[in-house]
């Protein structure tokens, strides 16, 4: 237990400290390498802690203010995966930018530092047992990642940064009001100042929370954290930020930053449900926001002209699917968590490929990128497979999780929801194929320019996520099933745990 705690402290503090080191290093390349090494070392420490959670139970730090339970351990695992993949990619991507002079030494150092800080801030969110610290962590991610968007300063990136800061800061203000209201709703419990915002304490005595206040709190929290998660109609910052950020940052945003905010909402669902007498009130709200996000994303995807913007709207769609799964309860929660993993892996790959193709073609405009498969078989193929997976083509694992969510909706006799979900998914499917076919196969008007230098690491960055998605779609290991089941059990509480038992694709 002692070593797990030490490992967790290291995993939290190492990126924070190395962030300062990176900004002070003389060169950009060395800073990027140090950042990359730090991420793998953090992943190693993190894995030790995660393993301890499943062997011996939750790991607690700082007198219970920080903890790692099966729900946070699952998310932390996804975070480490996304960060490791994206860091290697950042090394390749920015190496190219440095070679072509589109990025200077100072920007490279700043990026490495901010990247490490972002990792530390997201880790803090996942480890927080104190809801106030959780808020501090997520606000810190906003402030740190704001400059990651405009690391290469241009008119568009500055505009996107401003939208991101102002919209997400206001969202965070809402989330903070919600957190305070949660504190106020616990007044009747006579908790001491140490315990008042502790999630574990509130969960154990959730029945004593004032229901009306906690309902008001949840609305504030859903709007606040939902803004950061990209749930419609609070999503307006998301397409701009994803389009303008450098591709490694877009991959991180879509791959895990949105899920971090969703994780915060997941923590509140069991509290609200227990306090309101498991009436399903919070779940209905989740279904509403989830459905709305899916439909809004589908409408905007119809007329996209930019590859990264298309992927950004696809993120809104998938966050909507996760929210819908959480709202459906039972199998839906299990599927939503599975979808979080699938989407993180798949969207990271999609942004990797989009970024490298963008560098090759010099644009992200869909009508100007033609014959990507011919020009770069690795990245063109990667993008093709990633988008197929994203739109739910079998046998990729996203198909399985979406299918489970649809099944959960049908089982709950929510036929309108099922029909709307199918309509949304169908629209995205058709539009995405319409963009994808010319993008990959159509002959480029500029002939067949050189294919660029092939790097083995690039192939690994494409194949590792792809094989993962394919393997998880065909066969889910027993260990992953039990990890997902334990995490889902925390969100669902005891009432629906029996429904989840034994579920797996």
């Amino acid at each position, binding site marked *: 237990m002692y070593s797990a705690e030490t490992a967790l402290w290291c995993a939290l503090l190492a990126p924070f400290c190395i962030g300062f080191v990176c900004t002070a290093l003389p060169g950009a390349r060395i800073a990027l390498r140090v950042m990359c090494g730090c991420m793998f070392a953090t992943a190693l420490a993190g894995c030790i802690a995660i393993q301890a959670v499943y062997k011996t139970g939750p790991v607690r730090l700082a007198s219970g203010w920080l903890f790692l339970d099966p729900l946070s351990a699952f998310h932390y695992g996804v975070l480490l995966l996304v960060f490791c993949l994206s860091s290697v990619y950042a090394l390749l991507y920015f190496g190219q930018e440095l070679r072509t002079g589109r990025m200077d030494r100072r920007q490279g150092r700043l990026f490495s530092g901010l990247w490490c800080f972002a990792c530390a801030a997201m880790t803090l969110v996942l480890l927080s047992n104190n809801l106030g610290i959780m808020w501090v962590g997520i606000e810190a991610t906003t402030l740190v990642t704001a400059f990651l968007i405009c690391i290469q300063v241009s008119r568009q990136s*500055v505009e996107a940064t401003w939208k991101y800061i102002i919209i997400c800061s206001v969202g965070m203000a809402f989330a903070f009001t919600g957190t*305070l209201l949660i504190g106020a709703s616990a007044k009747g419990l006579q908790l001491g100042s140490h315990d008042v915002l502790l999630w574990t304490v509130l969960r154990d005595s959730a029945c004593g929370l004032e229901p009306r206040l906690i309902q008001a709190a949840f609305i504030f929290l859903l709007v606040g954290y939902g803004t950061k998660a990209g749930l419609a109609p609070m999503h307006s910052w998301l397409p701009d930020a994803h389009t303008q950020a450098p591709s490694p940052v877009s991959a991180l945003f879509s791959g895990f930053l949105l899920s971090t905010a969703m994780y915060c909402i997941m923590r509140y669902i069991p509290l609200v449900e227990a306090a309101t007498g498991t009436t399903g009130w919070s779940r209905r709200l989740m279904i509403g926001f989830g459905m709305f996000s899916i439909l809004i994303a589908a409408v905007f995807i119809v007329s996209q002209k930019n590859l990264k913007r298309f992927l950004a709207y696809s993120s809104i769609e998938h966050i909507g699917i996760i929210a819908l799964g959480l709202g459906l309860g039972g199998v839906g929660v299990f599927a939503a968590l599975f979808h979080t993993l699938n989407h993180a892996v798949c969207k990271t790959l999609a942004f990797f490929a989009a970024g490298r193709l963008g560098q090759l073609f010099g644009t992200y405009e869909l009508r100007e990128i033609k014959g990507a498969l011919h020009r770069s078989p690795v990245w063109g193929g990667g993008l093709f497979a990633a988008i197929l997976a994203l739109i739910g083509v079998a046998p990729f694992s996203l198909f399985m999780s979406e299918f489970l969510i649809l099944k959960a909706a049908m089982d709950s006799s929510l036929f309108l929801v099922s029909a709307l979900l199918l309509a949304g998914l169908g629209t995205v499917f058709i539009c995405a194929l319409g963009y994808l076919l010319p993008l990959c196969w159509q002959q480029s008007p500029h002939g067949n320019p050189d294919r660029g230098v092939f790097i083995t690491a690039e192939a690994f960055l494409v194949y590792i996520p792809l094989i993962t998605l394919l393997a998880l779609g065909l066969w889910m290991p027993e260990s992953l099933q039990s990890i997902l089941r334990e995490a889902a059990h925390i969100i669902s509480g005891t009432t629906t745990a029996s429904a989840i038992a034994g579920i797996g694709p």
Partner: protein
Amino acid sequence: MIEFIEILLMLLILFDLALLGVSRLKTCITISSLQGMLLGIFTVLAHTQGLTLRIALIAAAAFVLKGFLFPRLLGRSIREASVSLELEPYIGYIPSVIAGLALLGASLWLGAKLPLSSAIGIPLVVPAALMTFFTGLFLIIARKNALTQCLGYIIVENGIYIIGVASVVEIPMLVELGILLDASVAVLVMGVAIYHINREFDHIETDRLDTLKG
């Protein structure tokens, strides 16, 4: 003492209304600075019975950050961007004040409706907090200037601060200081972003930031 706190809260509400009706950015910043100082004093007054080191520290931090540091940061941005007036806001100044009065009504109604029993036993606390919160949001939505929007964010934070201090149970000091630190960094980050906007666009009117669409 209660009368004194009530006067303080009324002043806060008046400052909110004044913010809605003023076009000079410098005056707006001065008002927000005064509001910040009032919040520091309010924190101490609201806890005269059980004034602890924790509360005194939080009050001092709020007084210095909201009363001096934020206004200075914004003042510097004004000088760098060389703007002094908010021109042609989405919603004019007189309609803004009228909207402010409607917001005040809504705050009073919502304050009575929410079961937030004030820890210091003054019914005006929750409406004043909500009014400040709404005023901040209104400024962010109804004004075009990036600086006014940043100011709106500070006002929103002020509103939340009142709720936190007056009507919610004790939050651990570490959390409170973390929150104040986050708010300060947020203002700093916005200041840097405004600097970049001004350098790239030669203005800080957010309605003219329209290169990204779709």
